């Protein structure tokens, strides 16, 4: 069963793709408690609201053999209760004061948050400290959440048109690195998870030195610091959590396949080019290359595939930011009566053009304008600021990138965009799937 307020969140890499504009200046304070908990505070008294959040550096990739989907399953379990919070009460406490709460898991991290009226800030600290200090999970809770996660998997993946596309892409793009497995896990692993696994996982990753407490909104810094001390300082430090060290070797050639999907109304094409990690300097040029392809109705894929040739009803592309090297995706759904092969040829044509020719000065200026506009619009709420600060701190070790990262985008040249098209958008560096409606033909 999924509750009606179930939040919809990213499966893999949950970055604010936009970057900070020069004009915005998000001030914050950053410090570390003795137990290793990082704290980031952004005081902003313009509305009587506050976001309390914790990001843990543990995600889908941090599973152990035969236990895929653990980080996400665990996220569910940590709403079950604690020594002092009864079952189901996490949401009751928050909703009764007019707040909202939720959490999400990507392949790299798990994020919990409460949006509260500012006079309930301490409630948020209490709830999050309970979760970190002594969460409580009983057999009944495990069984309930196991059913919930399985239902979630059915609803979001198995019964959804195109719902398995990420899984089908990643299991082909990665053979060794755990990005190959679905974040939500395999059914058999969900069925076999045991209580001992949970204890081990909790003790390994849910330690203050693996977490960032990020708070944004209406408070006074000098008042909040003692409260943070009160709720979090006594939580004992843990051992340094293990990190994934597997390095995925490069693809040795194009991987092509056809996937059949009885629920899909239209044929589609999904491509994934292997790209470097989020912290790699080329990330910015790759991100802007994706904008050339599909940002706005006048972008290349929209113009060529949807308007001019009318091959597709929809086309898109985006980088999939990740802590370890990942992928950039391009996809399109065919207009009825069109062949996906034609779409593939057209996309390849667009990419080849970007590999051989520089984009025009006007198109380049459009990209820069879009980056700036998206950025400014990206930080309108305390929730988005709290999450971005934590994200920048966790992935890149520098929360201040929220203010300065736009400079990195602005440093990208037209030549850089052509260069990354040449370097990464090669056929032998991609997985390409035809997505066909209907049952797989029997042999």
């Amino acid at each position: 069963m999924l509750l009606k307020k179930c939040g919809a969140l990213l499966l893999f890499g949950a970055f604010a793709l936009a970057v900070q504009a020069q004009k915005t200046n998000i001030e914050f304070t950053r410090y570390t408690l003795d137990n290793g908990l990082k704290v980031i505070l952004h005081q902003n008294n313009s509305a009587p609201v506050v976001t309390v959040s914790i990001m843990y550096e543990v995600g889908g990739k941090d599973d152990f053999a035969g236990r895929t989907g653990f980080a996400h399953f665990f996220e569910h379990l940590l709403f079950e209760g604690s020594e002092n919070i009864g079952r189901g009460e996490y949401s009751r406490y928050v909703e009764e004061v007019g707040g909202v709460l939720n959490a999400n898991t990507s392949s790299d991290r798990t994020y919990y948050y409460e949006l509260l009226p500012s006079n309930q800030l301490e409630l948020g600290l209490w709830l999050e400290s309970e979760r970190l200090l002594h969460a409580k999970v009983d057999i009944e809770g495990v069984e309930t959440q196991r059913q919930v996660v399985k239902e979630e998997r059915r609803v979001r993946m198995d019964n959804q048109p195109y719902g398995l596309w990420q899984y089908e892409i990643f299991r082909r793009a990665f053979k060794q690195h755990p990005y190959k497995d679905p974040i939500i896990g395999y059914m058999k692993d969900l069925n076999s998870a045991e209580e001992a696994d949970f204890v081990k996982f909790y003790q390994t990753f849910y330690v203050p030195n693996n977490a960032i407490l990020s708070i944004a909104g209406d408070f006074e810094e000098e008042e909040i610091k003692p409260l943070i001390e009160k709720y979090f300082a006594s939580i004992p430090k843990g051992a340094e959590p293990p990190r994934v060290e597997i390095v995925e070797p490069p693809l040795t050639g194009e991987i092509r396949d056809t996937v059949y999907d009885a629920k899909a109304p239209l044929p589609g094409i999904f491509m994934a080019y292997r790209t470097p990690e989020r912290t790699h300097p080329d990330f910015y040029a790759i991100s802007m290359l994706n904008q050339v392809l599909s940002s706005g109705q006048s972008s290349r894929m929209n113009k060529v595939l949807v308007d001019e040739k009318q091959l597709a009803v929809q086309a898109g592309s985006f980088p999939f930011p990740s802590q370890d090297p990942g992928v950039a995706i391009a996809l399109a759904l065919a207009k009825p009566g069109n062949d996906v092969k034609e779409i593939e040829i057209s996309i390849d044509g667009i990419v080849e053009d970007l590999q051989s020719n520089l984009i025009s000065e006007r198109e380049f200026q459009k990209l820069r304008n879009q980056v700036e506009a998206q950025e400014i619009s990206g930080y309108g709420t305390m929730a988005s600021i709290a999450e971005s600060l934590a994200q920048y701190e966790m992935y890149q070790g520098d929360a201040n990138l929220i203010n300065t990262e736009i400079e990195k985008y602005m440093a990208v040249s037209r030549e850089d965009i052509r260069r990354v098209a040449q370097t990464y958008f090669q056929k032998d560096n991609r997985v390409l799937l035809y997505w066909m409606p209907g049952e797989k033909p029997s042999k």
Partner: protein
Amino acid sequence: MQRILLGLLALFLVAACSTPQATAPTTMSDKPAMGPMSEDFRATPPKPGPAPEIKLGDFQDFKLDNGLQVVLVENHKLPRVSYQLFVDVPTHSEGEYVGAGDMMGDMLRRATSSKSKEEIDEAIDFIGANLSTSGSGAFASTISKYKEQMMEMMAEVVLDARFPEEEFEKVKSDALAGLKASLASPDAIASRIRQKIYYGNHPFGELTTEESLNKIDLATIQNYYDTYFVPNRSYLVMVGDLTRAEAEQLAKKHFSAWESKGVPQPKIVTPKRPDGVTVNFVPRAGSVQSTIVVGHPVDLKPGTTKSIRARLVNSVLGGGVLDDRLARNLREDKAYTYSPGSSISSSREVGNFRASANVRNEVTDSAVTEILYELARISTEPISAEEISKVKKGQAGSFGRALESPQRIASYALNTVRYGLDRGFYPNYLKQVENSSASDLMEVANEMMSPKQTHIVVVGDKAVAEKLAKFATSGQVNYYDANGNLIDMEEMAAPSDLTPKSVIEGYIKAIGGQEAIDAVKNYTMTMEASVQGQTMSQVIAKEGGNKVSTQMTMMGMVMADQRYNDGKAKMVQQGQEMPDNPMITAALKEEARLFPVAELMGMLDKVSLDGVETIDGKKAILLTVSDDAGATQRYFDQESMLQIRQIKQQGPQKVTFDIGDYQEVGGVMLPHSLSISGMAPFPIEMKATEVKVNTEIDQALFSIE
């Protein structure tokens, strides 16, 4: 259609969500202590601080000489601006052209005297901005440095609009496809019937239909625009990083030349609540769930104390987040439904209240009983202090959270100016919430929610309908079709003199008689469809009842090639040949029959007669054919006895084939038009361009290597 697919793609990115549970008792198992001993302060939730003072950002307003009212909400937190031009179109009847306003809104952004849609798109993308339009104006957002350009573009799109023919065709076909898609949803049907029943002849009761959309032409669009888009009934709401001086300058420069003129404001009779309880049922074949809506029109004006209290009461009843009364009763206690709820809305003219739930067929009447029970309880018994305190806290919290959004503050500002509210209404909103007592709330509930004068609307399987008659003051259930037309169920019962056999015989006679059918050895049919501006053509050839060939081409390319020849089958889709598959072979064997309905005579045990339904205003007899592949519904026009519709399960979808334009060819009546819906995200309309009977057919068409 774009919207459907966007929704689909949105799901791509969606995955993990936490779902806190609120049910089931617990037995906590031992778990190793994972931290230090609990400190005492941890045992109970912390006390909240003093309630924050909620300061509503102020707004300014001024008027241009032509009557345009400008509202400014300054907010310099981020360097961005948004503009809304809200045209307060008076409530009016659209008569035969229902849907014209919405269609005008879709047309608005598609051309100006100097720009095409492509040029408008490019200009907006270039500055990373957004611009959308509707039947009541336009909305734009951008970053501060383009505030001038953006205003210029928005003004141009709204004031210098052109409505080109080719864009109109796209907009119209999208509107028709959207309507057709919505009629597949029981919630959408319930909402249409509800409108019709609550508001009757009032403009709120007018429903967009295929007929009304088809009547709309460019002149209707132009007329709507010319009549209602005037400055003297419009508001320009500017939000964000702007000063008063800038706002005045921008508004004057771009909008002062807009000429004011009078707008007709028809007198309209306000709809009233019914005297008693009515029960209104829309039969929907094959429903496994009933969609229930209990409600009625209410006199509730925006910006009043009563509207604040009504919202509070509604939170207690069914508008809460987690455990309001309807959820506790219908979901947690009875487990009838997953998401019951209620809502109440205010309006200058007439608002409405409604409580709703989707429940499985067998508990339909029980669920109605419980909803009526909760309405009676909330309108006659005082609400407990605990419930009141909970909803008050909840509303204070959500009101405060919403203030983060400058758009929300702007909507309050617009309401204040548009409805002429006291400037203190929104700033004092939470005080009014706080000051509402149990008896205040009961008074409002008694006026707004009492179940003694209400309409019960249910969409579902007609087998559950008669059990609902007991709720009606008249003791009668009113039956409606999806367009809100009353239907007479007695007439809808299958006439007692009809049997499956007599219907099929009637059909055989109607298409020319058994002898004529027997004389048909083969036929070919060439059909064409326009699929979003491109022509798709399909040639079907059948011979001897055991051979069929279907070739579908588009832009000279063969999209699909299906053949069946006496036991062997071949299917090529998009250039890929499907390997042998017994399902495909069986389906194509079926296709090869020359007159499949006539052949039902040999399998009458699999055919049942399931009553009469209305299709396009005509009565149609329903035969259901059940075989291994599932059930197929075939509808026959009761007058002509020709088959006019077939509904068939194809994979995960229910596909509807509307069959028409029968013409005589070679002694038999063959259909010349076919509309297929449910297969693609939009209907495919096929017209026959050539039909031939008993001619020489190139046997290569049937050949399978």
